[in-house]
C-alpha cells in the first residue's frame, strides 16, 4: 500500500490530479459539443417519445438553401465588422485622451466602464425605451433640434445600425480597458527617448505607440469579434430580429428554430454553422495580423 503511494509521484500524480478536471470538461463541454454535432446530422422525432435518427446531410443542405440563414449570416458579419471597427477606433482615441492626463481622467475612466458592467438584457431594454418613437427621449429631442424623428427599430434600412449603436455604447469600454492596459505597458523610457530624438504627436503614435499596441489590439479585436458574432440578447429585446428578419442574427435565428420551434436538429446545424463562421473569421484574422506583424518586422 505504502509503495503504491510512493510511486504516486511526478507525472502520474499530475495526471491523477488533472483527471477530475478532464472528466468535468469532457462531460460538460466535449460531450454536449459532440452531441450537438451529431444532432446536426440527425432527425429528432418526438412523436411517440424522443427518437434521433441519422439524416445524413439533410439539415446542412436545408441550411445552405435557406435564405433566412444567409440573411442572418450577413447581418451578423455586418454588425461584427462595423461595431468592432468603430469600438476599436473610439476606444483607441479615448485611451490616448485619457493617457494625456486630462483633468478628471480617473472619473471618466470609471464612467466609461459603466456600460460594460450592465447586463446586455438591461442594455436592450434601456435602448428600446430610448428609441421609442412616442415616449423615447431621442425622438423627442431630434425635432427640437430641427431634425426629423427616426424609426430606429422599425425601419428596415436603419434597424441594424441601431443595434450596432447599442453595441458600440456598451462595448467600447472593453476596448478602452484592454488598450489602456497595453498603453500602460509601454516603457516610458522608450517614449522619452523618441521625444528626445524629436518625435512628437502623430509620428510618436504611428511609429512607437501603435506598433507596440498591436498585440493588445489583436487580442481586443479578436475577443470582441468572437463575442459580437454570437450577439443575441440585445437584439432579442430590441427588435426580436424584426422588422421582418432585418435584424436577425445567427444566434437568434438558431434560437428561434431550435428552441422556439423546437426543431432541435436544425437548431444544432445553425449553431455549428455559427461555430464554423467564428472559427474561420478568427483564423483569417490571426493569419492576417501575424503576416502584417512579420512584414513590419522585416
Amino acid at each position, binding site marked *: 500500500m505504502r509503495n503504491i503511494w510512493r510511486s504516486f509521484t511526478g507525472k502520474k500524480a499530475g495526471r491523477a490530479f488533472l483527471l477530475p478536471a478532464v472528466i468535468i470538461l469532457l462531460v460538460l463541454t466535449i460531450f454536449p459539443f459532440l452531441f450537438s454535432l451529431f444532432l446536426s446530422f440527425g432527425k429528432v422525432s418526438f*412523436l411517440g417519445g424522443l427518437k434521433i435518427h441519422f439524416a445524413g446531410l439533410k439539415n446542412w443542405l436545408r441550411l445552405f438553401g435557406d435564405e433566412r440563414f444567409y440573411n442572418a449570416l450577413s447581418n451578423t458579419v455586418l454588425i461584427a465588422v462595423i461595431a468592432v471597427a468603430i469600438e476599436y477606433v473610439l476606444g483607441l482615441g479615448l485611451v490616448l485622451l485619457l493617457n494625456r492626463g486630462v483633468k478628471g481622467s480617473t472619473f471618466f475612466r470609471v464612467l466609461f466602464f459603466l456600460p460594460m458592467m450592465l447586463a446586455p438584457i438591461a442594455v436592450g431594454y434601456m435602448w428600446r425605451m430610448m428609441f421609442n418613437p412616442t415616449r423615447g427621449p431621442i425622438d423627442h429631442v431630434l425635432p427640437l433640434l430641427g431634425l426629423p424623428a427616426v424609426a430606429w427599430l422599425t425601419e*428596415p434600412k436603419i434597424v441594424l445600425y441601431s443595434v450596432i449603436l447599442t453595441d458600440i455604447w456598451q462595448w467600447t469600454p472593453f476596448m478602452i480597458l484592454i488598450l489602456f492596459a497595453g498603453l500602460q505597458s509601454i516603457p516610458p523610457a522608450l517614449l522619452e527617448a523618441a521625444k528626445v530624438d524629436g518625435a512628437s504627436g502623430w509620428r510618436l503614435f504611428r511609429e512607437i505607440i501603435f506598433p507596440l499596441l498591436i498585440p493588445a489590439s489583436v487580442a481586443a479585436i479578436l475577443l470582441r469579434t468572437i463575442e459580437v458574432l454570437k450577439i443575441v440578447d440585445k437584439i432579442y429585446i430590441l427588435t426580436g430580429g424584426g422588422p421582418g428578419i432585418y435584424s436577425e442574427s445567427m444566434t437568434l435565428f438558431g434560437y428561434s428554430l431550435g428552441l422556439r*420551434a423546437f426543431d432541435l436538429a436544425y437548431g444544432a446545424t445553425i449553431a455549428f454553422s455559427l461555430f464554423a463562421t467564428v472559427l474561420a473569421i478568427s483564423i483569417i484574422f490571426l493569419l492576417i495580423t501575424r503576416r502584417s506583424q512579420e512584414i513590419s518586422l522585416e
Partner: protein
Amino acid sequence: MFKKLKKSRLIKEVAIVVLCTAVIVLGSLGSSQALAQKRFEGVEITVFTQTPPFIAKPVQMFRADWEKKTGGKVRLITAPWAELYPKMFSSFALGAKNYDIIIFPAAYLADFASNKFLAPLDTFIAADTRIDWLDILPVYREKISTYAGTIYAITMDGDSHMFYYRRDALENPEYQAKFKAKYGYDLAPPETWAQVRDIAEFFNGWDWDGDGRKEYGVVEAMRKGDQGYWTFFSRSAAYTSIPGQAQGLFFDPETMKPLINDPGHVQALEDWIKMIEVGVPGMINMDSGEIRGVYAAGEAAMAIDWGDIGVIADTDPGSTVKGKVGYSILPGTTKTWDYVKKTWVDFSEVNHAPYLAFGGWLGAIDAKSNNVEAAYDFLSYLGSPENSYICVTTPETGFNPYRKTHFEKLAGWYGYGFVHPEDYLSAIQATIAHPNVQPDIRIPGAFRYFEAIDAQLSMALAGAKTAKQALDDAAKEWEAITEDLGKEKQLKNYRASLGLPTK
C-alpha cells in the same frame, strides 16, 4: 326508596353509557376526519410553470393552505416562457419525472397528450365533488382541456382575444357628427374590420382626448418573435371561418393542406398591413406587454388583446383610461372565404369568428408521476370554483375568467377595481360562447408552425414581401413541417384536436 335509588342509578348508568358512546363515536369521527385531511402527509409534489408573478402566483397563493389541509408539500419550480416547452418536453420524453404537475399553455396539450405524457383525468374528475366540472364553460372543458375525447388537463385560465375601444372617443357627439360626414355611417364600436380601419384613420394623429398630446387610431401586437401571429389569426378568423363548417383557419381537415395562403388570409394580412399607418408609431415592434402599457397611457382609440388590457386599464394605478374603456367581441366581416367551394361567401349580417388565441393555461399531471392522486388533489383545489374566482379577480395571477360562476358574481370584480365589470365579462362571455368561436392550433409542432408564419408575417409587415408572397412562403414551410412530422399522423392529430372522427 330502594326503587327510587335503583331508578336514578339506572338513569345515571344509561347517561354514562350514552356519553361514553358519544365520546367514542365523535372521537373516532374526528380522528377519521383528521386522517382524511392529512392523507398526503409526507408526499411532496413538484409544480412547474412560468416565472412569477404571472401564472405562478396562484400556486404561491394557495399552496400553504393546501399543505395545511392535506399534510402534503408543494415544491414550485419556474422558468421563463421560452424555457417552458423544452424543459417540460425533455422531462417527459426522458421519463425524468422532474415535475408532477405542469401549468402550461394550451397549445402544448396535443404534443404532450398524443405522446401519452399526461395522466388522463376523466375518472378523477368524475369522482371529484369539489371541482364542479360543469361550471367550466363548454369550450374549455370540451375542447381546450381534452384531446381525442379524453380529459388531460384542468382549465386554469380562459384566454381569448377581444376588442377594446375608448368610450370617450367613440361616444363623443362632436366626433360622431364629423365621422358621419366623412365616412357616411354612424360612429359606433366597430362591427367589421373595415370599420376598424375607418375609425382608426379618423382618430389617428390628433389630440382627441384633450390631454395636449397626439393620440393614434389603434394599437396591436405585431412584433416578431412574440404574439403577432395571434393578432393576425384574430383578424383572419372571420375572413376564413364559415359558421357550421369545420375549421378553415389553419389546415384543410380532409387533406392537411395549409389554408393560410387562401384569399381570406391574404385579405386579412392586407388589412393588417394597412393598420400600421393608422396605429401608434413603432407598433410593428410592439409585443402584448407594450401595447397594454400604451393603451393604458391613453395613446390609442382601439386595441386587440386578451383580457389583460381590460384589467390594466381599470385596475392599474398608472392608467389614464380608467372607466373610459369599452369592450366587445372581435369585429367580423361581411364576406368569408369558403375553403371547400373555393369562393367568397357574402353575409347580409356580419360574420363573427372570435378566436381563442393561445387558449389559456392548463394544469396537467405527468403520466409517470408517483404522486398522481396528490397532484390531482392540488390541481382540483387550485381550480375549484371558489379558489379560481379569487385567482381571476386578483392582480398579477395572469388568469382570466372561464367558469360560469366567474361571470355571475360581480362583487369580486368591483373589488378588483373594475368600473364596468358587467360589460367586460359579457364581452368575454360573448366571445367564448359564440357558435363560430375558433380554437387555436392544437397539434404536435404547433410552435414550429407559428414560428414559420411569424417570420413571414413580419416580412410582410416590414414591406419586404407582399401579403400573398409572405403567406405563400409560409404555406410552403407549413407543408414542409407537416411532411417532416408525418403527414398522416398530423392529419390524425389535427382532426382529433377539432373533435372530428379519424379518417
